[in-house]
């Protein structure tokens, strides 16, 4: 109890700070597209607008279910993704501080080290991207701890901890699944030699079983309910496409010729830059495998995951993996005893890691690099960066920002026909899914099937925009955006969206 109380202030400070940052990011559409879609889905689920099948097949399940539950128990309009991210960050900070204290660090240096790690640029980036990214940080840390424990003692709880943290990673974020898969060839190295000698394959099977079985079960349930067991694999590939294009453009001169290899090298470099304390501390105890192997296995899994994510195009942007740097930093701080005796060096290396973390994000996150370049070249005035709205208008994708604005306009209006799967930010901007006729519901499907629209409002994007190219309504009613429909009039428009309102009660047919 005393330890919890001692860690509470730092956890609270971090919670408030992260809440402020992520709240601004959520409002300003700086949250990633995948996170926005997840949040929109959680709103729909909490509002009872999503079928049981849709809920059980939603992926990544952990942040989705957490947000759905939080949406149910918090007041309307509460910034749930920000709250969840802040809660995770606060818990992490408290845990890290407490662990550092137990490892023998004095309170002041433990606090300083915790703050340097929790406000590491990679963690801040994860918080802005959305709770799923921050959950990856949390589960990655827990996996590191579990690997150290499993190396120290052969026991069932230790094996369970490794298995369940891998499971948590897999269902927190697609990149977490890549880390779990990436760890398969390496887990044996984090295991006691005596156990590996028995049968390395069987030990790896045991450690990976929760992931393998849960994934198979999840596919099966997805197949039973929505009817396609592989639905969940589709979503993140879009974000990777953007990453790959920007990365290839930014590093055209130094590319190895293979994007997966480039990604792996970039992530490895980001880890070293973002956590210089890790290689240094591992070097100090290089002869003591119980202290080095778990950290190296964790780092190796992350690097392999980067290559896998790019090669398969199924796991989203490898930029998320930069969060491994602060995790490794905290692990070596608390797990390698000699670091405690060299506190000044350790803090200096952590500070260097903070700067290196910022630099590494420029390497691994080309979108951020482009935005920073734009800001530094004067296209983004500094005073605007300070406010959430400015972040919305400058940092986020235009499509998301415009959909968010549309969502604000339709707030309080019911019977709105809109393709929320294509533009989830509309749901986020509106703050509620009830009243939207979305692809999750029958009326939307019937409208498309019979080419007949009876909704009070219709929201469609410009077919020329990237949103418009994928919009189901635009595909079924190609002239709707430009010509409108008889008996409907435009009541709102921005650079992407037009909102039509029905002026009488006559049903409208497609031209």
């Amino acid at each position: 109890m005393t330890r919890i109380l001692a860690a509470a202030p730092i956890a609270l400070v971090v919670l408030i700070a992260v809440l402020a940052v992520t709240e601004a990011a959520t409002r300003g559409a700086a949250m990633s597209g995948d996170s926005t879609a997840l949040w929109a889905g959680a709103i729909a689920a909490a509002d009872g607008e999503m079928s049981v099948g849709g809920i059980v097949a939603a992926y990544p399940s952990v942040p989705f279910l957490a947000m759905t539950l939080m949406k149910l128990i918090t007041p309307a309009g509460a910034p749930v993704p920000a709250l969840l991210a802040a809660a995770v960050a606060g818990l992490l900070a408290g845990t890290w501080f407490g662990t550092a204290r137990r490892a023998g660090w004095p309170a002041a240096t433990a606090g300083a080290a915790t703050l340097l790690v929790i406000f590491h640029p990679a963690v801040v980036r994860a918080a802005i991207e959305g709770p799923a990214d921050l959950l990856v940080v949390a589960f990655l840390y827990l996996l590191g701890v579990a690997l150290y424990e499993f190396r120290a003692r052969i026991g069932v709880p230790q094996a369970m901890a490794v298995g369940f943290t891998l499971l948590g990673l897999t269902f927190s974020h697609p990149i977490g699944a890549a880390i779990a898969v990436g760890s398969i060839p390496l887990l044996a190295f984090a295991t006691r030699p005596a156990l590996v000698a028995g049968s390395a394959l069987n030990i790896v099977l045991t450690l990976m079983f929760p992931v393998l079985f849960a994934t198979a079960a999840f596919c099966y349930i997805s197949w039973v309910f929505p009817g396609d067991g592989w639905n969940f694999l589709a979503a993140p590939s879009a974000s990777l496409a953007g990453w790959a294009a920007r990365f290839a453009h930014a590093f055209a001169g130094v590319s190895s010729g293979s994007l997966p290899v480039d990604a792996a090298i970039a992530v490895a470099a980001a880890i070293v830059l973002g956590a210089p304390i890790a290689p240094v501390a591992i070097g100090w105890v290089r002869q003591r495998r119980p202290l080095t192997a778990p950290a190296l296995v964790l780092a190796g899994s992350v690097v392999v995951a980067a290559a896998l994510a790019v090669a398969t195009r199924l796991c989203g942007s490898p930029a998320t993996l930069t969060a491994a740097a602060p995790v490794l930093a905290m692990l070596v701080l608390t797990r390698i005893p000699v670091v405690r005796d060299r506190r000044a060096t350790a803090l200096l290396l952590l500070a260097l890691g903070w700067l290196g973390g910022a630099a590494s994000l420029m390497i691994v996150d080309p979108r951020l690099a482009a935005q920073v370049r734009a800001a530094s070249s004067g296209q983004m005035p500094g005073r605007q960066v300070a406010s959430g709205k400015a972040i919305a208008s400058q940092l986020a994708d235009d499509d998301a920002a415009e959909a968010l604005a549309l969502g604000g306009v339709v707030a309080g209006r019911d019977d709105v026909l809109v393709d929320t799967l294509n533009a989830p930010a509309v749901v986020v901007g509106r703050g509620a899914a009830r009243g939207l006729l979305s692809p999750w519901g029958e009326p939307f499907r019937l409208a498309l099937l019979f080419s007949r629209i009876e909704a009070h409002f219709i929201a469609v994007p410009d077919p020329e925009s990237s949103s418009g190219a994928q919009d189901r309504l635009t595909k079924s009613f190609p002239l709707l955006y430009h010509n409108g429909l008889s008996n409907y009039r435009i009541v709102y428009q921005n650079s992407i969206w037009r909102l039509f309102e029905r002026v009488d009660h006559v049903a409208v047919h497609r031209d």
Partner: protein
Amino acid sequence: MSARQVFTPGQLVIGYGLLTALLGGLAASPITTLIVLNVAMGVFYLGNFLFKGVLVAVGGGRSADRDYAIEIQARQLRDEDLPVFTVLVPMFREPAMLPVLANALRSLDYPLGKLDIKIVLEAGDTETIEVARTLGLEGVFEVIVVPPSSPQTKPKACNFALRFARGEYLVIYDAEDRPEPDQLRKVVATFRNAAPDVACLQCRLNYFNRDENWLARMFTLDYTLWFDQILPGLERLNVPIPLGGTSNHFKTSVLRELHGWDPFNVTEDADLGIRLTQKGYRVGIVDSTTFEEASCHVGNWIRQRSRWIKGYMQTFLVHIRRPWHLVRTTGVLGLLGFIFFIGGTALSGLLNPLFWGLYLAWFVTSAADIDVLFPQALLFISLFNLLAGNGAFIYLSMLAPIRRGWLHLIPYSLTAFGYWVLISIAAYKGLWQLLRNPFYWEKTRHGVSRYAIERIAEVREARP
């Protein structure tokens, strides 16, 4: 309370009432009734695997340091400080096992003079009695012949022998048991360190013929999970422990206070474990293993398991007669343990085939009639139970052998389904016997495995 009366009039009335309610429900609103049944079963399965998961996690966290300390103390005990220890070995028609057993008991690291070994034989088992008399056993071996009476069960024989016990402590071994040599010393050391209310210590059981065939391997995984993971979890959470059939060490005075075992219960030790808790005593676990012979032939295995399941049904029916007394004396966790391990073991064996059949019919035919019984939310719960339940039990079986380093057994846990089918067959056999022949002791044949046969041959050759 004894299993002599299988069902009390009250239980029959309640059972009749429930059956009537079920039939009435099916007649009035069949879909709703079946949905309610499904939900109830779903909750039972979910609770069962969650409870076992918690026990394994808690049991796995048992301090190895404590076991090590006991091991050191056991070694340091001087012979003159050791109490007289009674060893009861009830046997029935196992003449070939007797020399093997005598050798195993002679190898115990305990002064012979302080051992009070009683070979307990039924009067009608003339063959074993004859072998016992001609074997030339030392004076510490005493043959006790149980006069003929009904029911002819192991607990009745043990009760008869209990009156002759001279030891401060008493242990029961089966004929084929091979306890680790320092087991009795560890038990004495543990009793001396334990709280006064610890009246019984259960040692771990496992199999020496674990690699004989698939069934022996699965049985080993089953036992390893139970004795190495779940029982320590029960002990740590202070949940009543259904004692295993052998290697349970008692304070003889407490055993006498409880009037021994229920002679009508065919899992008398499980029943005794509950009774001990109800009387305010606790059961501990000792980190010492007795190796037994796994039933490695399907018929023999089903006979043994059907007796266990029948005994669990008896135990459940006996203690559920006074439910409030059960809750008051064992606590909420105790009640959960009782429901999941005593009632649940039998119930899941009986229910599994019904659910497998329903699932198979739904999967193969996509029958709309079955879909009606499973609205989307319930379908999800049922599928979750099916997948998570099976996955969890396979996973727990996979984890179980890690502690002993028997990693070669891990892949066999993936074939657990076949083992559950055998359990269900045994459950139905046990139920049938409960109704038709409740006190019949389904005898497990020992000395049939390759390992045991070799051992018997070795002992025969070694004898002059």
